[in-house]
């Protein structure tokens, strides 16, 4: 697969995303400069973490006007997979590709540490290898991760199963104590209604190798790659039935033989 990693001025997890997709998961990676106006030929797009434009004014507020974002929007509308991690999530919110907004962490501090998240929706193209309710340990590193949306939006997120990850205790309980930043309903990651755009504050690319003492993040990234492969096979074999409109139906469970390690704390 060819994964595009967008480089905004001030992106700093772009290298990490390239490393994990290319060197850990064995995929092709294309770095996409923010001034590009086309993203054609890519199988998925990652908006990496960092401090695009210094995060001045508001996180993601300036980056969303980068020329590439128009192309990303079209790509998403056509059903392409878009993953926004941390600052990438914030950019997706500012760009309106995902609903809601980000506020400062309740503590007013930047927080860098491992947290636990519960997979609330294991049927997205990003969580296909997860079990519903599975608990993953993933690090966060942000100062603005307090997700906010108005009650109507939240209700529709819930109704459409768009809440993909929530902060939880190691045993899966979703509690106030488990919430590192004050995020509404412990929301750590959401997707759009079509399910092909995911934004998440935790950094799966930081925990995808056992040498980093945790490889839970690999499950998410590998889900994405395997989903893409499956979609391509479906297209190649002309199994049109598997494809509805523009949106491929991605299997919600890892197939047998899918090599994904990690996944501690299953509940």
């Amino acid at each position: 697969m060819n994964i595009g990693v967008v480089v905004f001025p001030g992106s700093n997890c772009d290298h990490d995303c390239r490393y994990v997709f290319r060197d850990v998961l064995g995929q092709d990676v294309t770095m996409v400069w923010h001034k590009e106006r086309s993203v054609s030929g890519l199988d998925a797009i990652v908006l990496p973490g960092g401090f695009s434009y210094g995060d001045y004014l508001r996180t993601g507020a300036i980056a969303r006007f980068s020329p590439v974002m128009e192309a990303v929007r079209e790509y998403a509308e056509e059903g392409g997979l878009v993953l926004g991690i941390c600052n990438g999530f914030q950019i997706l919110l500012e760009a309106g590709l995902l609903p809601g907004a980000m506020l400062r962490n309740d503590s007013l501090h930047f927080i860098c540490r491992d947290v636990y998240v519960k997979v609330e929706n294991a049927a997205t193209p990003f969580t296909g290898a997860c079990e519903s309710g599975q608990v993953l340990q993933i690090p966060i590193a942000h100062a603005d991760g307090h997700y906010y949306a108005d009650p109507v939006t939240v209700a529709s997120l819930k109704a459409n199963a768009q809440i993909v990850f929530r902060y939880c205790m190691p045993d899966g309980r979703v509690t106030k104590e488990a919430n590192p930043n004050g995020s509404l309903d412990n929301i750590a990651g959401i997707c759009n209604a079509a399910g092909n755009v995911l934004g998440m504050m935790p950094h799966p690319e930081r925990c995808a190798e056992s040498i980093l003492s945790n490889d839970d993040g690999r499950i998410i990234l590998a889900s994405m790659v395997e989903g893409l492969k499956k979609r391509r096979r479906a297209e190649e074999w002309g199994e049109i039935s598997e494809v509805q409109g523009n949106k491929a139906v991605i299997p919600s469970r890892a197939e047998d033989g899918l090599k994904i390690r990690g996944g501690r704390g299953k509940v």
Partner: protein
Amino acid sequence: MPPITDDLIAQHHLTRDEYQRIVTILGRDPNLTELGMFSVMWSEHCSYKSSRVHLNKLPTSGPRVVQGPGENAGAVDIGDGLCAVFKMESHNHPSFIEPYQGAATGVGGILRDIFTMGARPIALLDSLRFGELNVSQNRRLMKGVVAGIAGYGNCMGVPTVGGETVFNEIYSLNPLVNVLCLGIAEKDKIFRGAAAGIGNPVIYFGSKTGRDGIHGATMASDSFDDESERKRPTVQVGDPFQEKLLLEACLELMAADLLVGIQDMGAAGLTSSSCEMASRAGTGIELDVALVPRREPGMTPYEVMLSESQERMLMVAKAGKEDECIAICRKWDLDVAVIGWVTGDGVLRVKDQGTIVAEIPAKALADEGPRYDRPYSPPAYQDLLTNLNYDVIPDVKDANAALLSLLESPTIASKRWIYEQYDHMVRTNTVVRPGSDAAVVRIKGTPKAVAMTIDCNSRYCLLNPYEGARLAVAEAARNLVCSGAEPIGLTDCLNFGNPERPDIMWQFVMAVEGLADACEFLKIPVVSGNVSFYNETNGLSIYPTPMVGMVGLIDRVERAMTQWFKEEGDDIILLGATRDDLGGSEYLKIMHSREQGSPPFLNMEAEKALHDCVLTLVRGGLVQSAHDCSDGGLAVALAESCLSAPGRQLGAAVQLTRGRLRKDAVLFGESQSRVVLSAKPAHREAVLERAKSFAVPAAVIGTVGGDRLVVSLGDERSAANVIDAPLSTLHDRWARSLERVLNET
């Protein structure tokens, strides 16, 4: 321009003699711009005038040294065609004036020192000293400094992986903020700051120039009094976003083979970068300040040459490559301008719209500043400090309570409140995060990793600066070997009071000699460093604080070691001998309010044997954890091995014998050359045997397991539990102490 008066000379912190020297060099009186340029370059901060004669004693060579002191940073060979480029810098004075910006721009400065060498920065460490946290001003300073380091480092995408934080009243009006940065470069692609090649263009790039920090360099050589707190100079404000663009642009420029030399504009800004680059190459530079991009109207040549605006660089390009250089800078949205060229006459010639405004031999400015061999002698109070009659100090009654007090004291307590605000994981290389003896960062594309630590016990240095400096080197190296790394290079940041005082100068000279001897013995070269004098307020100096930053190499990253216990049933083994070493201990300070005595005894042979032994054990896969004993002694080291695990914490049951020692000396004394190991019982014999072969004392002192730390003390006939506490209690005291005090606004 105003005439040069005695007043003006004094305002520029130049002595009459220094001024005469300038007149001799120029063969005439300087004008104001020239006076300003000399004053910054000949300041203590830039010229090392009081320290140079002593710094020459440090061992700076070795088989791995690729670049020793003298460049923007030092470099050591780590194999695979790569080298580690590193340096430590202080930003003490600016951080006291404005903690957030002072600390932030300190990070910015040291990062530039690393990437100007062609290295991508991969790790930062910070070493901090504050006054006690019961004073709200100290809490405010600490919060500001930590936020500033986080604000800059996080935005740059360089992980802050470790550091050191110590609290003592003496730092209340002189906090220390030292930052170490390490980068990785290809060995044969290191860039140096030399302006070679007559006719080559000199190009300015980065941020625009404003009136920031004019006289910052001379200010850093000035001590504080109540007056200077009021007349605050313009504060430099950092823009980490701009620096991130600068970093990426620099690495792109370097990869494109366009440059002859490059240097950042740090202290003394455009003046230092231009004259140092010319001096290194034996050339001259001619530049026109009118071409320098500016943020503010009406700036004089004096101001442009002395401005310390951040995030700026100077490069000398290969002739004809200027357009390509400019294109790369523009791609990264940086201001850029060709402001001059390299000349053959050795003169730094500054013009303003074509009119000459300054003309100084570059070498005289950069390298021929005054050198002083200042008088030094030990202070009269030195004996009072070391002569401590232990008979008047009762031995510990409630060791349990003492342990809790020590664990809770901010110097020993967990620094999580600090390092959680730092992104310590970005770049996905941090194999051992903050919270163990040393941070370990892997080098992608190789099987290796580097380990890094900063250490200095300044109380030891106060009591005996020579021994204190040796102890700092020993502790740093010990922290590295505990992490499985072989020490390969050292950088220092020497923080002292006013060198014009013989007692302070004595502390400095002794400390440098201690550093030199320890490094010589352990064969660890000093490749870079920094001196910060005048850390003194209202006549009160800080403790001598020669901070030691050390870098080690781990040949196989998967063998990196951590300090916490791993498995129930493992043996706990103590390497090294325990002596009566209570002098200068954290225990005496916390429990008896004394900062007295002689610092712990250090035998370098024993220390070196311990290092070799620990490295062999770790590399041989014979141990599960290794933790050095430092502040708080053996009891604290044991508690830390129980408490610092990121996952499940494991207790321990330990039996210690006392011999003829005091109870408190056994538990809390800070005897050197000791390490707490844990090992699988199956490896017990092998571990003890190896230790014996290195002539390192070793004893099995207990077992890992349970949810309490229990320590008994006695002899064969009778032993009593002197420490017995649930981990939850210990953990609460140790882990939450900082946040508890800091929440008191």
